[in-house]
């Protein structure tokens, strides 16, 4: 798996931080290049209040880019919704920090009752349940944070260096640049890659891609450019990239990027 190289910090506040499911989320975040810090209060009898104090201290000292926060901090009545109290403190003191909250109240009126009072209109808070896959957690965090990364991984074999405007083929720990993809071809690839990074599955409509094409038949021009992109990458990788690989035409609507599986 390609590692994005960016200095993003995330604080995890969850009393079940040692559970396999949380460990798998942390591992996935580490693979994404996040610096993860888990809040672990000291002492034998740890309560929700202890987590609250430690969490606010960690946010103050670490200045994270995001917080992953659980609602529930134990079976005691006061701890069952402790996360909402912590969320309220974060929103009041650090309104710029996005919070992704593990909650059973993902849907339904209970969610509104449970969280409405804690949120300001511009709070960057999202909700996800604990059965979510680590991949889903990562996708939600990407969207919540909103800023573009410096590198975009496309599956296991490709990486886009956004600043240098270069596409790399990753093969056995070597990164080989695809020199033939530059200028407009790079812009097309970057448009598709960044959409895939933020919103997997989203089709980039023809209307948005038309600015990269020319001539009397813009769609035909686009088709040619995409064919050239695939051929350039295929040449570096030593494979043929077919019509249904990497960049896919979706039923006359537009194109979307998919991970390249070999």
């Amino acid at each position, binding site marked *: 798996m390609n590692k994005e190289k960016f200095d993003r910090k995330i604080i995890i506040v969850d009393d079940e931080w040692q*559970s*396999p*499911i*949380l*460990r*798998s989320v942390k*591992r996935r975040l580490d693979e994404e290049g996040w610096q993860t810090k888990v809040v672990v209060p000291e002492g034998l009898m740890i309560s929700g209040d202890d987590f609250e104090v430690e969490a606010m201290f960690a946010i103050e000292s670490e200045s994270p880019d995001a917080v992953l926060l659980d609602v*529930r901090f134990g079976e005691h009545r006061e701890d069952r919704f402790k996360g909402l109290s912590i969320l309220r403190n974060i929103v009041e003191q650090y309104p710029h920090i996005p919070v992704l909250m593990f909650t*059973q109240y*993902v*849907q*339904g*009126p*209970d*969610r509104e009752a449970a969280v409405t009072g804690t949120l300001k209109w511009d709070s960057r808070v999202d909700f996800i*349940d*604990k*059965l*979510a*896959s*680590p*991949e*889903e957690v990562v*996708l*939600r965090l990407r*969207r919540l944070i909103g800023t573009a990364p410096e590198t975009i991984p496309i599956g296991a074999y490709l990486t886009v260096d956004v600043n240098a405007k270069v596409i790399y083929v990753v093969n056995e720990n070597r990164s080989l640049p695809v020199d033939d993809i530059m200028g407009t071809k790079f812009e097309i690839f970057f448009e598709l890659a960044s959409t895939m990074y933020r*919103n*997997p*599955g*989203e*089709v980039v*409509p023809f*209307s*948005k891609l038309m600015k990269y094409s020319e001539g009397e038949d813009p769609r035909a021009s686009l088709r040619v450019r995409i064919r050239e992109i695939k051929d350039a990458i295929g040449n570096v990788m030593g494979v043929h990239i077919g019509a249904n690989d990497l960049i*896919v035409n*979706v*039923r006359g*609507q*537009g194109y*979307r990027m*998919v*991970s390249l599986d070999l």
Partner: protein
Amino acid sequence: MKKRIQILQVTKIGFAFVVLGGALLVLASPFLSEQLFANVWGVEPLTYVGVVLFVLGLAGISASYAFMDMLNEPQYSSGEENKSDSDWTTITGQYFDLFDHDLGRPLRRILGKQREVRENLKGSQDTKISDDVLDLMDEIERQAPNFRLMLANIRILVQLESPSEKVEFQPVEPVQIVQKIVDRYMHVAHDSKKQISWWADPSEFGLVYSDSSAIEHIVTNLVDNAMRFCTSEIEVRITKNPTHFFIRIWDDGGGIPSQYMQHLFDRGWTPEATRREEKISSGLGLFIARTLARKYGGDLTAESLTEPNDDHHTAFLLSLPLAGD
């Protein structure tokens, strides 16, 4: 009501002390009366006082219990039957919330362990993973969104049964809802070598006035079904006209036979039940989805083309008013 019950409980405790005081006086009277009173009237005076206190205390406690029973007994007239229904819904919902976390706990452990084992096996170059083990792990991962949906379906069903459940509208971004649902199913699709594509037309779709939870629940049910029955492609399309917005979920599966179409939205119906086979789903998803859609002023319809047509597919169309009711 709560305050009255609290007052009665305090009163009960007070009367209990009175009973105790009376009993103590009765027991102590032989020793104290001679010292306190010059004349002894047949029975020590303190005994009289003690017995009176004892009886009064007992009477007070009994009365407190009787009042508490009266307050706890539901007083329903025909006008208050709806209140009892909503109490049932509230109580059932609260119990469900209580168990939801506990119901999810074993699955979280199983899922978490499966993911750990998968990572460890991936990282170990020496170990060859058998196909059966991979299948098992994939099956566990595939069932996770299904389980989440079942829990959500039960919760929604409880709310739908409530006659007093209000319909509320708020500004909603349908695009965000579809994004979240696709996030949930993306890795399952990838593992099953299936593709989910989605788009909005216009691409800058904007807000509608509806209920985000209802939309999310309906579309999740439809995407979940599509994941199960598609061959390899699922498409989700968001469009609108001047009065309504539409979310269409299309899959390239084998299609639904025409004789099943009339039962599709029946509560509890599944094609396996018709064939007398073991049910692989609850049969609640489409029933709940359509009920929710109609509750919010819209509808849910289906059309399908079966094999051996080249264009075999199934498409569900959710339509909802742009501006609420």
